[in-house]
């Protein structure tokens, strides 16, 4: 089959399946690592469990066992007495690399703010891997993150999920087999950006009309491709005695393939569920409007981002299987953020099936996801919701992994999962907590006590020569 596809591609100079799956492929490869056993830790597994005085063993890049098991004779032994271990932290909303430090104008690569629908752009093509923010996030325990376009546009483009490893290319960071994200935006930002230019959309109703028009085009595009692919399949099926690649190709030639369109390819991917929808949306009523629109077009909203009013519709989010990626305490910077409360995350977490996530959208916040989660946990507990650390850690690990479609690989410490984990000096829900070591796929990528394991970007190298510390 692969051979035949290759022939068809050669004949037609085009192959949608290959183009979709292999464009800008990941070149990430886990670093070689020795087995490590951590002894006597407090373990937050990421899926709601807490194990006290527990051991965990990682080898071959994966978690091998928790509790008891065999250890290779050459395994490193880490005494984790009084230490805590969590899965590597995951930020579902970052602009590292696309709005990097230094934030000079020529580095402003996060919003293709030239048209309200730019589903054709991919955030990864803006990523500057030398952003020093990646190294700071690593020191904060972040092992994976989604880099998103900004929110100037209704459809901002594709987001990409990265492993937080230093690399000269984003391909070298690209999380293997992670689905793409599609960034969309509600509310003030798109209507302000384009309304100020006296073009559509300038209102919230203009926003919704423009989303729907784009989805209608995407539906047609998807139907065109479905029809074409069905015709190719029919040609194969109706000619069982002649399966030569030439006859299939001739059938395809009589059915000229639709012209590939980068914008609609991404939108159709979202309608099919291959690309996960991440929607910037603050107000409760707008989130409900969007859920109705998703119903109209038959797609799933994966995660509402920012959602400062998500607490008002927490039940609807849970019932629709939508995550809320939220801040602990930002509010008031614009009127759609006016009703922010510090219990937002805890209230979204409350219903059965609730999927609360602490996100950063900030080069500072991504360094302290544990502190942001601590604030949200505190507010939930003070409101009487009884949220222990093993529950709150989900907001920055397994729930975030679920939002990104990587929960089968990371975000939870259980056998077979990627050995992405953080060794903390203490209970991580404190301003005094610090990652001592950060492992990615079983390899030690950051060690607070070892300068040789503290990566530095090219940009920072050789700066301030002669300055004594």
């Amino acid at each position, binding site marked *: 089959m692969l051979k035949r596809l290759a022939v068809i591609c050669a004949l037609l100079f085009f192959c949608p399946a290959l183009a979709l799956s292999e464009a800008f492929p990941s070149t990430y490869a886990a670093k070689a690592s020795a087995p490590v056993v951590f002894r006597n830790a407090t373990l937050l597994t990421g899926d709601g469990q807490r194990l006290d005085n527990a051991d965990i063993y990682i080898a071959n890049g994966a978690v091998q066992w928790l509790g008891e098991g065999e250890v290779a004779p050459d395994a490193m032994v880490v005494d984790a007495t009084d230490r805590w271990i969590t899965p590597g932290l995951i930020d579902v909303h970052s602009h590292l690399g696309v709005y990097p430090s230094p934030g000079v104008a020529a580095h402003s690569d996060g919003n293709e703010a030239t048209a309200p629908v730019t589903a054709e752009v991919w955030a990864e093509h803006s990523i500057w891997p030398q952003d020093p923010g990646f190294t700071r996030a690593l020191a904060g325990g972040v092992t994976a993150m989604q880099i998103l376009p900004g929110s100037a546009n209704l459809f901002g483009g594709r987001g990409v999920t990265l492993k937080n490893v230093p690399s000269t290319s984003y391909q070298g960071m690209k999380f293997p087999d992670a689905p793409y994200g599609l960034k969309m935006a509600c509310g003030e930002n798109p209507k302000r950006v384009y309304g100020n230019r006296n073009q559509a959309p300038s209102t919230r109703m203009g926003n919704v009309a423009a989303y729907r028009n784009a989805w209608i085009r995407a539906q047609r595009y998807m139907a065109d491709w479905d029809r074409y692919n069905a015709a190719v399949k029919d040609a194969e099926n109706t000619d069982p005695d002649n399966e030569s690649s030439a006859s299939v190709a001739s059938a395809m030639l009589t059915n000229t393939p639709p012209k590939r369109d980068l914008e609609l390819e991404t939108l159709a991917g979202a309608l099919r569920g291959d690309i996960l929808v991440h929607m910037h949306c603050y107000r409760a009523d707008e989130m409900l409007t969007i859920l109705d629109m998703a119903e109209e077009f038959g797609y799933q909203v994966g995660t509402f981002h920012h959602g400062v009013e998500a607490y008002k519709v927490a039940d609807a989010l849970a019932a629709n299987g939508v995550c809320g990626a939220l801040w602990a305490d*930002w*509010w*008031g910077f614009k009127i759609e953020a006016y009703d922010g*409360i510090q219990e937002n995350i805890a209230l979204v977490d409350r219903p059965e099936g609730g999927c609360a996530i602490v996100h950063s959208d900030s080069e500072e916040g991504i*360094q302290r996801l544990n502190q942001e989660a601590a604030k949200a946990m505190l507010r939930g507990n003070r409101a009487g919701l009884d949220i222990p650390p093993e529950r709150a850690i989900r907001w920055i690990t397994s729930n975030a992994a679920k939002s990104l479609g990587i929960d089968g690989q990371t975000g939870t410490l259980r056998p077979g999962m990627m050995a992405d984990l953080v060794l903390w000096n203490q209970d991580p*829900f404190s301003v005094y907590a610090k990652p001592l070591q950060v492992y990615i796929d079983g390899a030690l990528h950051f060690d607070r006590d070892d300068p040789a394991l503290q990566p530095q970007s090219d940009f920072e190298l050789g700066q301030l020569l002669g300055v004594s510390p």
Partner: protein
Amino acid sequence: MNCSKYFLIALLLSAPASAETILITDGLVHTGDGSAAERRDILISDGTIQRVAADLQADADTVIEANGRPVTPALFAGITASGLSEIGMVYESVDSGLNELYTGLMHPEFDVRDAYNPHASVIPVTRVEGYGYSLLSATTRDRTLAGQGSLVRFDGGFTSFEGDTVLYVNVDGDSGNKLGGSRAAHWMLLQNAFDELATTDADLTLISAAGKATLKSARKNSLFVFQANRASDLLRVIRFAQAHKLRAVISGGQQAWMVREALSDASIPVVLNAMDNLPGNFDALGARLDNAALLHEAGVTVLFTSGETHNARKVRQVAGVAVANGLPHAVAIKAMTSLPAAVFGGAERALVPGARADVVVWSGDPLDVNAAADQVIIGGQLDSMQSRQTQLLQRYLPVDAGMGRAYINP
């Protein structure tokens, strides 16, 4: 209009507490003067702290049993536009700076206190988190002399200003580039403006006569807060302040650690964000989390700000990060409580007899993210601990909405 009547109403609204007495028992009292915390009782009446001692025997209208919980002076919220901004991006609700319609690079006479609104929702939102005061800023960043502010108390008063007038001066690279293509333009213009103080009003070109009068007075009586981060700019601030005998404070100071001895020798305090550790621009290369600790070790006075108004409540986390990176805890508590008042000329705020009774009882370490203010006392009165946000919570916390959330009115 009956002006005296309105004046009387204003007086009544900002009047000090009644004769209510409050006794806080067995608190882990952080005096706020840099000393270690000790278990103490505190007696408050007439808006002031009357006594601080172990096992106080006193009658009181209200007794708060702290049971070992930390007690501090109400915190300093940093440099903010509290009461000058209802919503950041709703421009008609923001009064913290002159817009571009006003020509001229220097408006020292612009005074944000004239726009202060004690009913801004951010004030109770911040107060219930344990904050009692802030430094009002004039935020016009593309002017060399942006204007004036001062300390303001979060006590609901219309004119609850305190301490010295503070003038804001921008001398960093970002605003310098917008201004005249060079940060040197700031120094040229500042020097020219100070030179003009000696000329007749008819010869003024940079500032108005009112601006000149303000600057003349400010030179003797006010504090000059210089916004600057790069080490070379900080040294230039020191030279300028010494040449003109100005009392200077640095705001920003991301490279202050590099020139900490010079700042210490010049006795110039630094207001910083201890979370700054990225080269956000070329002035911030080398920004580091132990900036506050290094400055303190060198003898520099350090204060904290978060750079935020609506989320100014985050500044205690900023101070906590400084402690996590080497600053002594008691020093950070002092920097968050009594020291800003001392630097900017406000009233005594350490928990000592005679001081303003702006006091907070905490659920745990005031600098940690796992603790919150249990009870705030401002001017000797128990705060209601209510804000728009606490009421939104009360409306949406019940699982059963009954007739609808609009009928749940806290």
